[in-house]
């Protein structure tokens, strides 16, 4: 029972970060909370397959991500035509704080393809390692690296940020290549 208790506490503690990830993926607060709910239910069902002591957060992110993509596939079939309209209407812009800078960033982020958006969020915001992100997304570490790199370049283009001298595209590519080879 205590194990169940601590599992339950772990799930609850993960809710804020799961919600943030869900909003980043779905761009929609209501849908995000549905995703989190579904994730918690699934996690509960799969409790036996979770090894205590391993990374609960990464495990939950994996479930949430799978749920997101399976819902998205379902949704695409259901509302093929009106999907864009629905997304635009329900698009969430939480805590409008007058920082147009941040709003621009949010919009730019929404323009990224899903795979790039999730990669840059997992690495740059959620605090996962490339290895963990690869595990969550079910792909190779090198794939995550190239997605992050493309996402970053794309964001720079959209936002007109140039010449972040330290890591130009070439630098990033070189690092990735080196790491893959190494």
């Amino acid at each position, binding site marked *: 029972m205590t194990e169940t208790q601590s599992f339950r506490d772990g799930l*609850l503690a993960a809710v*804020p970060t799961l919600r943030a990830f869900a909003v980043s993926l779905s761009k929609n607060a209501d849908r995000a909370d549905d995703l*989190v709910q579904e994730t918690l239910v699934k996690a509960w*069902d799969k409790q036996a397959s979770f090894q205590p002591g391993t990374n609960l957060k990464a495990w939950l992110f994996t479930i949430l991500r799978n749920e997101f993509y399976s819902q998205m596939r379902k949704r695409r079939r259901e509302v093929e035509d009106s999907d864009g309209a629905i997304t635009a209407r329900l698009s969430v812009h939480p805590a409008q704080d007058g920082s147009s800078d*941040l709003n621009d960033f949010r919009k730019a982020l929404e323009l990224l393809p899903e795979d790039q958006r999730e990669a840059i969020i997992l690495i740059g915001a959620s*605090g996962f390692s490339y290895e963990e992100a690869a595990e969550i997304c079910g792909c190779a570490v090198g794939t995550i690296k190239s997605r992050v790199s493309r996402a970053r370049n794309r964001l720079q283009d959209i936002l007109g940020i140039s010449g972040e001298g330290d890591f130009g595209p070439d630098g990033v590519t070189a690092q990735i290549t080196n790491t893959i080879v190494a």
Partner: protein
Amino acid sequence: MNHKNPGINRGHGRDISTTDPLGTNSEIGRKLKQYYDELVTPEIPDRFDNLLKELEKYEQPQTVTEE
């Protein structure tokens, strides 16, 4: 070699210790964290607390029917 060693993690012991193009020196990296931090609200809506209490009532984890 006009870029600094990306392996150097400027404090905090974060996970991204290697090839960190999204570190604190990067404008994109900073904005990304700002954007995300705003999304991570500490309050947990009741619906999740209630959901877990509900799930916990079942000794055996069980499948919940889909909507």
